[in-house]
């Protein structure tokens, strides 16, 4: 159960290796890739920034919470920071379980909670030359609308 911020490229097979478990019948993996558009804008690159100490602490809490709610055997999440090009891997989540239902649900919950709660920020660089911090627009001009604010405080 590790949640880690990485400044270097992620290699899924290497990451998955730590989750090998002979009790596991199901392995579900999520990869978030830098895609070439957001809403109607053409994207050229993404820049990720994290408050590493708190991100890893909050991420570990997410993994622990998910493990109490779903019958999983293992779970891990690694998130990149820095400037990422189109097609690059921004976030990886891997989950093992005896049965696939728990693995799918836990994997989904981990990425959902990570996006909602972990102090990581994303700046889009558009092909037009403009840039925008996602969820930070205050006049609704270019970035995506803010997600609902998570509750203050851990947990």
């Amino acid at each position, binding site marked *: 159960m590790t949640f880690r911020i990485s400044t270097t490229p992620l290699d899924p097979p290497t990451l998955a290796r730590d989750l090998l478990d002979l009790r596991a019948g199901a392995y579900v993996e999520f990869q*978030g890739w830098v895609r070439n558009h957001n809403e109607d804008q053409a994207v050229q690159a993404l820049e*990720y*920034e*994290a*408050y590493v*100490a*708190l*991100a890893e*602490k*909050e991420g570990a809490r997410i993994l622990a919470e998910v493990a109490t709610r779903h019958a999983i055997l293992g779970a891990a999440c690694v*998130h990149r920071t820095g400037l990422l090009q189109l097609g690059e891997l*921004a*976030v990886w989540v891997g989950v093992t379980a005896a049965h696939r239902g728990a693995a799918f649900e836990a994997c989904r919950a981990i*990425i959902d909670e*990570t*996006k*909602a*709660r*972990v*102090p*990581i*920020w*994303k*700046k889009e660089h558009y092909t037009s030359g403009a840039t925008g*911090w*996602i*969820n*930070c627009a*205050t006049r609704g001009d270019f970035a995506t609308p*803010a*997600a609902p*604010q*998570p509750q*203050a*405080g*851990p947990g």
Partner: protein
Amino acid sequence: MTSVQLHYFALLREQRGLSSEVLATSATDAAALYAELSARHGFTLPIDRVRVAINGEFAPWNTPLLEGAELVFIPPVAGG
């Protein structure tokens, strides 16, 4: 006056123009400090879209400022 350490990330880092600073303030809680800095630096994010972390943990906005505290204002997150 209370002396606190501040770290800035993402939009707030750009609007402040630096990543960290040590600041002496007369604000008595985190909310008052954010208001003070917003007025001084033109932060565009209203306080209800920002969270605060004190000494490495999320904290309520009305947490009193203690000498030497480390504060981070957290803009809306967008991982993934």
